[in-house]
């Protein structure tokens, strides 16, 4: 057993209101520089939809992630030799228009326009060329489905969902969607790291953050194509790749990443989980239907004495083990088994886990039609017993979070529904009935667990949502530099201007 710690994440999709505050916090902090305008290290997509960059899940085009060929795991993008041969032109690289052409508006014109009969307007200006442009796309262009059913129809996750249900979903009365906030998944088996010819991308062993070494990056841009989540971006101004850094400067000073801290719906949880690095290869090689379970198996119980001993042997301190024991992520992922990685079939072993959303409204269903004349006490049970008729089809959610395995998603939705029904009975009716308790049992949970899930879902404090382990920066500084010799130095930023080339 080779125990390592990972600062891992859980997003509770039922709580996401799609406000994009996370994206804006990230943008203001990290990607408001030239060449990064088009990058959204954090973005929020409407699902079903095509996402950002458009159609990023189409791996036949973008060649992201890993593939199992004859039992061996290989990059979908290239073999090693092929990687070198493609240095001059990378066929799978997205173009800027796959994201969108970044724009601003000529606000000065509102003040400087010469006198005329017409009201002056602020024309859109390309942030690449500086010339007027027509805005044809944006980072959340299909927000709330963008008033069109085209976005939802082009979602690749419809695979396996019957055409009738897809047609139903396209009807305006039956439209249902949820939000999917995405950041870098800081994978255990990252394809971007493997694809980088220069070896510039690495995973920090201490906390699992995946970073690009900007000094080693030579702009071969293989990582951009190889990341199946399209979360590595090429800075066209500096000729270097950049990606989400999980706000490690904030983490190292005890703060949650900006997107976590600013989350209005409080959907985000952050905490340490302990994993067995020796199991990564096995888990990444698992059969498609077992991928989620194999990944969960690699996540270790931080209360297990043998795990603790092995962790200490690897240099993990008591404080980090305590952080792992208090981790909300561990609870959601491993104890309650409510959270799943996005697209496990990419075999990168994403370490950001999503709690899948319940259908927008719990309504009663009969032969696919909403029936409203049911008595209220029966409505709750209808969906629980007929989950396959949920407005967001199970197959769809399974394609997103379980490599198409419906059986992985079903118990999670049933448990989430059980929590909802139980708490509703308790708070609205004021008493519990036999039927509800039977339902709780059928969902494989207990009233105690439901209370704990409810507590962490609905009423967590900041300290419960973000259990940031102590990074001991004070120790690091003492060793790297003599504090007296370096007194008076400030900042660790660029000592040269980040400009293009020479």
């Amino acid at each position, binding site marked *: 057993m080779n125990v390592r710690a990972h600062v891992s994440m859980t997003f509770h999709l039922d709580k996401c209101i799609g406000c994009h505050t996370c994206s804006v916090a990230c943008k203001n902090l990290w990607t408001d520089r030239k060449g990064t305008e088009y990058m959204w290290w954090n973005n929020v997509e409407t699902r079903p939809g095509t996402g950002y960059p458009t159609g990023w899940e189409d791996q036949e085009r973008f060649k992201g992630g890993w593939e199992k060929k004859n039992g061996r795991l290989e990059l979908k993008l290239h073999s090693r030799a092929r990687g070198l041969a493609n240095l001059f032109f990378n066929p799978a690289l997205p173009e800027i228009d796959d994201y969108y052409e970044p724009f601003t508006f000529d606000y000065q014109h509102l003040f400087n326009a010469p006198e005329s009969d017409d009201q002056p307007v602020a024309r859109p200006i390309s942030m690449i060329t500086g010339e007027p442009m027509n805005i044809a796309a944006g980072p959340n262009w299909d927000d709330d489905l963008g008033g069109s059913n085209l976005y939802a129809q082009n979602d690749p996750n419809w695979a396996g969902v019957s055409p009738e249900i897809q047609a139903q979903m396209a009807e305006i009365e039956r439209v249902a969607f949820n939000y999917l906030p995405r950041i870098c998944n800081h994978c255990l088996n990252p394809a971007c*790291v493997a694809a980088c010819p220069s070896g510039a991308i690495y*995973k920090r062993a201490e906390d699992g953050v995946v970073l690009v070494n900007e000094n080693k990056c030579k702009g071969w*841009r293989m990582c951009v194509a190889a990341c199946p989540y399209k979360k590595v971006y090429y800075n066209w101004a500096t000729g270097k790749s950049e990606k989400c850094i999980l706000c490690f400067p904030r983490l190292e000073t005890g703060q949650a990443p900006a997107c976590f801290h600013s989350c209005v719906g409080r959907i985000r949880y952050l905490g340490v989980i302990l994993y067995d690095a020796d199991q990564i290869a096995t888990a990444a090689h698992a059969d498609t239907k077992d991928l989620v379970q194999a990944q969960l198996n690699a996540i270790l119980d931080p209360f297990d004495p043998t795990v603790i001993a092995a962790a200490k042997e690897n240099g993990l301190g008591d404080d980090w083990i305590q952080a792992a024991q208090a981790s909300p992520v561990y609870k959601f992922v491993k104890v309650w088994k409510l959270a799943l990685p996005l697209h496990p079939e990419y075999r990168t072993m994403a370490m950001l886990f999503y709690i899948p959303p319940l259908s927008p409204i719990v309504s009663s269903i009969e032969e696919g039609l909403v029936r409203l004349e049911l008595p209220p006490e029966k409505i709750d049970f209808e969906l629980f017993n007929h989950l396959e008729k949920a407005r967001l089809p199970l197959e769809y959610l399974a394609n997103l979070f379980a490599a198409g395995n419906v059986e992985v998603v079903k118990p999670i939705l049933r448990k989430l529904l059980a929590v909802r029904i139980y708490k509703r009975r308790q708070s609205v009716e004021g008493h519990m009935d036999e039927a509800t308790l039977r339902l709780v049992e059928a969902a494989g949970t207990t009233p105690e667990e439901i209370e704990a899930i409810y507590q962490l879902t609905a009423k967590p404090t900041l300290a419960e949502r973000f259990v940031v382990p102590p990074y001991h920066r004070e120790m690091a500084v003492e*060793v790297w530099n003599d504090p007296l010799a370096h007194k008076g130095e400030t900042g660790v930023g660029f000592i040269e201007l980040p400009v293009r080339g020479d």
Partner: protein
Amino acid sequence: MNWNVLLFQVFPYVALALLVIVSFQRMRGKPFSVSSLSSQLLERKLLFFGSIPFHWGILIILLGHLLAVLVPQGLLWWNAVPIRLFLLEITGLALALWTLGGLLVLLYRRLSNRRILAVTRPSDVIVLLLLLVSVVTGVLTAVLYRYGSYWFPSVFTPYLWSILTLRPRPELVADLPFWIQLHVFNFWVLLALFPFTRLIHIITVPLGYLWRPWQLVIWVRKHRRSAVPAAARPSAQPQTAEKGGAYGTD
């Protein structure tokens, strides 16, 4: 000092000195500035028709030149049979024209596409123009002064070796026609500009990718743990052999 000595003896040494010293300094001191500066994100169609012919063409042609410098006897042996000489010359010329086509596409793309212009600096255009001079004079040499592969070993191989072994004999190129002299001089110019322009990305070709492990896992505080006395560590644990590092899935 005459022009011949200045251009083909003094300048080559200036160029080589710049090449070695400045490249080393830039790779070491300003690694952030070293990049292939790819613009594929901004434009991909023309790049496909420009970059692939240019890079592969120039790569093979340069390797041919290198072989002629390293193993001139081999070249002479090959050319001893006329059909093989013609084959070599035709292949070389075809590659040169392929390269030239790619180069022209790249130049057109750089000067016509709005997005590419936004990331174009003077040095990008200068490099392309100098490369154009190299390829055009090379083609002219191949066409006008046949057969290059036949006389190269007796003229340029000794000249280049005389420069590299610090016993310069610039007189070897003194009486050559103008186009050939331009071809040689332009080569030294490119070497001199190499460390100051995007050409430097040539030495960053990541051959190590062929054998490095797939995954790179780095202990940021490995040094810290070994450098701090055990008692002073935040978690005073017995130090064991460093685990992890990288794991391979291949």
